[in-house]
């Protein structure tokens, strides 16, 4: 098991190095250099230009610059934002809980509805029920989620007036951030109604962000169930006289879950990309909105750092899924 883990770990290491190379070259591919960017349109005299370049270490050969960059990355130093002058890692970490909270809720929503829908569609294959679920999930899969978000606001916030349009919490409350997760922070605070406000702000963005994962999970669960229901052990279980419920929920679903777990893991990337759109629509103060704004402000260290952290995160989530997969299924652990 440990050997399997290390083999997987060394497999992701080149990917991590590759991502650092990518983010490192990002800053060198932009037209003009970092000094000119900082100086802006005022321009800068050549002597001061060379001086600043030397200060920032940009006069060294590229390989040396790269190793210095890598060294700093491992020390947790991702540079400072051009705009706020704060360290990138600090900025990221203050915003990340908001994105994590939203993504987790979106994923819970997706699994909660996608999994049963997929199971039912698989069990009742070929019925109108199955066709409806599959049609709805293909529509969800094809959904431009930024538009979906606008529609949700149009219907639930404007037309019905049920939910707030944007943000994480009503302006009536001020909650001192403790964990960064608004749901937990509002529970810990003794402000009445704050938790309800946080929850109502979270519902629409979670549904919007969870739509595509929901569709993917439903489709995957259905096809996985169809595979498993054909297996001999399901027939054996039926022959033993077990109830339909037990055969489906215990014997079939447990084995059908293996590919579904992988798909859930792979949705991390989809969620983080979707977060850029969802956070923009709902003015959700998270990492996705921050990266988009950084691109707009040409704040290159922030873009560079943000991409590096998110890519690393995804690489490690995928590693986690791989390892989990190996734990569930010994056959995978022992093949190369």
């Amino acid at each position, binding site marked *: 098991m440990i050997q399997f883990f290390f083999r997987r770990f060394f497999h992701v290491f*080149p*990917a991590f190095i*590759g*991502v650092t190379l*990518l983010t490192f070259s*990002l800053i060198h*591919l*932009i037209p003009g250099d970092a000094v000119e960017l900082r100086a802006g349109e005022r321009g800068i005299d050549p002597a001061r230009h060379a001086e600043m370049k030397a200060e920032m270490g940009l006069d060294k050969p590229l390989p040396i610059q790269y190793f210095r960059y890598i060294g700093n990355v491992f020390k947790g130093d991702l540079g400072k934002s051009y705009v706020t002058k704060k360290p990138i890692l600090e900025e990221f970490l203050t915003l990340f809980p908001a994105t994590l909270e939203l993504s987790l809720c979106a994923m819970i929503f997706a699994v909660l509805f996608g999994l049963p829908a997929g199971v039912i569609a698989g069990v009742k294959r070929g019925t109108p029920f199955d066709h409806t679920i599959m*049609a709805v999930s*293909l*529509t969800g*899969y*094809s*959904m*431009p989620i*930024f*538009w*979906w978000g*606008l*529609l949700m*606001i*149009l219907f639930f*916030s*404007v037309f019905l007036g049920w939910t707030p*349009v944007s943000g994480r919490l009503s302006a009536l409350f001020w909650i001192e951030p403790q964990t960064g997760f608004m749901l937990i922070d509002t529970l810990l605070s003794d402000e009445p109604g704050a938790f309800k406000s946080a929850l109502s702000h979270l519902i629409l963005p979670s549904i919007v962000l969870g739509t595509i994962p929901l569709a993917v999970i439903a489709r995957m669960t259905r096809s996985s169930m169809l595979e498993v229901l054909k297996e001999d052990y399901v027939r054996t279980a039926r022959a033993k006289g077990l109830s339909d419920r037990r055969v489906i929920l215990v014997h079939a679903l447990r084995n059908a879950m293996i590919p579904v777990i992988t798909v859930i893991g792979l949705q991390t*990337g*989809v969620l*983080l*990309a*979707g977060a*850029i*759109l969802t956070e*923009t*629509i709902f003015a959700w103060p998270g990492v996705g909105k921050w*990266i*988009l704004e950084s*691109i*707009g402000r*040409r704040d290159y260290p922030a*873009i560079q750092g943000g*991409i590096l952290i*998110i*890519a690393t995160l*995804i*690489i490690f989530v*995928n590693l986690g899924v791989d390892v989990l997969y190996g734990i569930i299924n010994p056959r995978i652990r022992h093949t190369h």
Partner: protein
Amino acid sequence: MSEMTSIPLENSAPPHPLKEFWKYFSENKGAVVGLYIILIAVFLAVFADYIAPHSPFDQYRDAILQPPVWMDGGSGKFLLGTDDVGRDILSRLIHGARLSLFVGVIVVTLSLAAGIIFGVTSGYFGGIYEVLVMRLMDIILALPSLLLALAIVAILGPSLQNAILSIAVVVLPHYVRLTRASVLSEKNKDYVTASRVCGSGPFRMMFAVLLPNCMAPLIVQATLGFSTAILDAAALGFLGMGAQPPTPEWGAMLANALQFVQSAWWVVTFPGLAILITVLAFNLAGDGLRDALDPKMKR
């Protein structure tokens, strides 16, 4: 009994591949609907200049935010209403079909061509070259597609061309991996060995012998690639990182829509509906193609 004795003889010959393909494809009703929608979209895109009732750029100052024809205050002049500067939404949508399909065609062509070249060569030659190519593709796959596309646009600057280029890069790994996998499974088959014995050079081996036998999954992926390309281009346009105003691009049309959520629902609704229907059509057709081209699915 009489039915059994009169088995028609012509059935023993295999049907023409295209005929057989259509037989399986048309069994899937959704796929056929998708195909028809795609054909309509292509028709609208090609003849947009003749079909659209107005120019997509003309601003009718006396008809700003006019509702669709069936609502109070709507007029037959603007069937789906007008936007905040008085442009006809229907005409912009029709011209938008042209842009979206154009994006799809260019992205799929670029990524398919590059993907085939990298995929076939890495599958055929193997070795350190293959490792390098595949690791590079792994890195691209490790990043969320929209984030990577945004990063590329951040370097190159926001425009439709750069959006197309960045989406083509982002989807490239799918084609490379798919082509390589097919080449690897075909490489050791007898017909390939026979061709090698006959003295075929590497170029001929790769592109004339192997590639035609690897096309089925690529065709499916290319069809589904249209939907990804259209969706991503619209997302970039929505974020202001793709097509720039006043281009009638569906995503860009929604960029400022948030402020009209309260007052003019038609500005918000129709462009997104156009994206959804088009993307759904390509996904339906792609699913149908997969079923029709996959020999394992055939009974």
